[in-house]
């Protein structure tokens, strides 16, 4: 059903789930980025872009309550971030899973809800049903009884998506789920996430390196570079003027006839800020 909605939806969100005002973050007294102000609404699909080390994962850590902001304010669901917020589903950046991990996928997904409860109850049927329907929503129903260590990269990302979805979150934080996927799997996974965003009204933040596969689905882009953040619709942010302002050097955004963009002039900034 969500395939009907492939064009960017620019309607004003009714409720804002995440608000930040003059937010800054960093490690050990060193600021990575600052002056970030943005509002994210319910059901928005947000791409987070920027060079390596620009602080994209740092933004997730702040939202997850794993790291305190260095300045400014940020609120999720009207309250400051706190670790263990059940309304957030999270897929951390992972490159591999140990191929010796002989545990079935259903078990990992089920731990997405039951893993935070103490005590011993491996036979809970509600948990099992929730895990099965999360696997279904992530297009991974056929993987339920496969071993984690035997999955391909694309299959693994679908299982992680199910693990994040099983607690029925309102916000999804996806840290580079597309890395290590070929173009076909990348497109499949994006469609899955887009389906979830549209059908459940989930707000999804997705860190990626390549904007082009995301463009058909995105409502918003957060571009982090040079210690600052630009937020807006893809049309607003992915322009020569706005990226030049962000980077502080001349940046060209080129578009091909199919709507793909190429950002020229920023290669030397990659990996600048560890």
């Amino acid at each position: 059903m969500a395939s009907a909605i492939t064009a960017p939806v620019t309607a004003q969100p009714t409720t804002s789930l995440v608000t930040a005002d003059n937010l800054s973050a960093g490690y050990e007294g060193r600021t990575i980025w600052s002056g970030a102000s943005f509002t994210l609404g319910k059901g928005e699909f947000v791409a987070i872009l920027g060079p390596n080390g620009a602080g994209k994962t740092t933004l997730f850590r702040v939202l997850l309550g794993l790291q305190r902001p260095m300045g400014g304010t940020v609120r999720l669901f009207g309250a400051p971030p706190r670790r263990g917020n059940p309304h957030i589903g999270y897929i951390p950046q992972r490159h591999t899973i140990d191929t010796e991990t002989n545990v079935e996928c259903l078990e990992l997904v089920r731990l997405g809800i039951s893993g935070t409860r103490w005590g011993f109850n491996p036979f809970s049927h509600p948990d099992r049903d929730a895990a099965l329907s999360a696997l279904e929503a992530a297009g991974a129903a056929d993987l339920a009884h496969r071993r984690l260590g035997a999955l391909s990269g694309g299959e693994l990302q679908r299982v992680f998506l199910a693990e994040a979805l099983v607690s029925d979150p309102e916000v999804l934080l996806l840290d580079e789920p597309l890395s290590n996927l070929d173009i076909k799997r990348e497109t499949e996974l994006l469609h899955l996430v887009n389906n979830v965003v549209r059908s459940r009204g989930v707000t999804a933040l997705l860190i990626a390196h390549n904007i082009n596969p995301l463009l058909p689905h995105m409502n918003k882009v957060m571009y982090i570079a040079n210690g600052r953040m630009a937020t807006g619709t893809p049309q607003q942010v992915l322009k020569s003027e706005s990226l030049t302002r962000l980077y502080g050097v001349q940046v060209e955004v080129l578009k091909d006839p199919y709507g793909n963009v190429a950002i020229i002039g920023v290669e030397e900034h990659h990996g600048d800020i560890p």
Partner: protein
Amino acid sequence: MSISPNILADLQQIWRYTFMQNAIEAGTLTAIVAGVTGYFVVLRRSAFTAHAFSEIGFAGAAWAVLTGIPPLAGLLLGSNLGGLGIALLGRRATNRDTQIGIVLAFSLGLGLLFISLYSGYATQTYSILFGEILGVSNGQVLETLAASVAILVGIGAIYRPLLFSSLDEDVAEAKGMPMLSLGIVFMVIVAVAVSFAVQVTGVLLIFSLMVTPAATAQYIASKPSRAIAASVIIALLATWIGLFFSFYTPYPVSFFITGEVFALYLLVRFLYARFRWERMSQGSLLRDPADRSG
């Protein structure tokens, strides 16, 4: 005494000896605990850490022999100090092979020093290194029982968060699980389990109960509860069969246990698992084979 074809008569004969009764009771308890704890040790890739505990425990036990306190107290002290130290180093510390290896070597050296300082007959040292289950007293069986109950209750209480943090540390942390406390509790549990397993297998052969049964079980079952059950069954059978054979032969129990679990591991790893996964990849073991035709 020799083995007769009548196994029941053999077992009755074995059971007549108090030392064998004690050995079977202590061995059974240890096998259950080692099988359960070992599953998480293997899942968390902490096998080397568990081994290091036993060697730090060896230094503690040798020190205990020297100062005249029970070796088990020294073992517990040493392995728990090691466990706390590694847990406090924080997450991923269990994977620090090099540092653990350095501490392990120093512990063995320290143990050697204590042994050489001890002027008495060093049989106790030998039994700490290679296990002395046939010398377990009634009191030690009760100690083992108390520790086993405590360990199983402890693991039961943290079962799901422990499984979660073992499989998916980053998500478990983001979900608000207290990773440091979980790590400390688990390391203490492993340290106590190791100390008691040392009675059966000795410091040097600790893997045969703590690691090999669980590693084998992982190839048999992919559901944690079932894999734990399989791990316990393997550890139990290995201990019982080892005790049975060592009763009738001059060879040590530890040798039989290590040999049995190793043979079973090879069998499962290279024959059973391959066969099973080949079938699984063809879909014939999925829940509804009908809809996978073609």
